[in-house]
């Protein structure tokens, strides 16, 4: 049995107050648990997307590293590093936020990546071009993956918060309100019975007195 709220006076006013609070808590609990379920189903959907994307990115990345390694073997790694520094900047993303069930999640759009080579042909090899294209190809997926992972993180945080609230309502607040309600009802009933009995008793006493007076 849950504890009653401390310092509560067993009066009718308090009873009404607590009943109101109880209904509010129950409504809140229902809403929050619905929110939690919706968030979790959303989470499951995104996690599937993430799994597929992750595998794709990882295999593409592996491929790209191999090409880069081959280019380094042909040109030497300092030459590759030098060339890499000359490439134009494509790392600019349009970042906004998307609202999923009241949770803000990142939404990103990367600019169009040109399929052209920004460095000279003389000192570079075809392998380097291959590696560059593979990495460029990867960028879109990486941005998408970041978007999905960011969404998952924020959703997870929100789920945790909602879960905690649902549990607090379910296991602490609602039982406490119910116990307090019951306690006040018991006290009030008891008081009523006492009153009732007292009235009867007084009536009996008065009647006895009257009888005694009549008799004399």
């Amino acid at each position, binding site marked *: 049995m849950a504890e009653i709220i401390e310092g509560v006076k067993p009066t009718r006013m308090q009873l009404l107050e607590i009943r109101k609070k109880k209904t509010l808590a129950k409504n809140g609990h229902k809403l929050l648990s619905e929110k939690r379920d919706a968030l979790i189903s959303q989470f499951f959907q995104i996690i599937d997307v993430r799994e597929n994307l992750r595998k794709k990115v990882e295999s593409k990345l592996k491929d790209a590293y191999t090409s880069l390694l081959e280019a380094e073997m042909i040109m030497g790694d300092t030459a590759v590093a030098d060339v890499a520094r000359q490439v134009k*900047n494509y*790392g600019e993303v349009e970042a906004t936020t998307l609202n999923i069930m009241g949770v803000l999640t990142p939404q990103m759009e990367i600019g169009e990546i040109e399929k052209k080579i920004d460095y000279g042909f003389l000192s570079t090899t075809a392998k380097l071009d291959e590696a560059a294209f593979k990495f460029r190809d990867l960028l879109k997926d990486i941005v998408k993956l970041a978007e999905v992972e960011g969404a998952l993180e924020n959703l997870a945080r929100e789920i945790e918060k909602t879960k905690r609230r649902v549990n607090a309502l379910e296991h602490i607040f609602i039982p406490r309100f119910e116990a307090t309600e019951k306690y006040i009802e018991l006290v009030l009933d008891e008081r009523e019975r006492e009153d009732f009995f007292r009235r009867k008793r007084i009536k009996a006493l008065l009647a006895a007195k009257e009888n005694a007076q009549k008799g004399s």
Partner: protein
Amino acid sequence: MKIVVVGTRDVVNGFRLAGIKDAYECEDPWKAKEILQEIKDMNDVAIVIIPRTLSSEIRDFINEWKSEKGIYPVILEIPDKKEVEEFEDPMREIVKRAIGIDILKR
């Protein structure tokens, strides 16, 4: 908003070739931590890409950052060139905490 890469030489070279100018090369995790600390203060970063060989060494720092940051930047951990399978996927921990069970399988 921009994408920032912090990583070992191969990662940095690769992403520079892809056209990301903000690539910081570093080989050891502590240096990476210093660089990340600086990135933390920039406010136009959308994605931070870091290889798992570095990030797994400074897991505490990254988790702390993740818990106090807002939506951006998103910290994305990618496999390194010499990636082995033993790296723990950080998403697993998140999933486990959120829904109570471990549904991501390796």
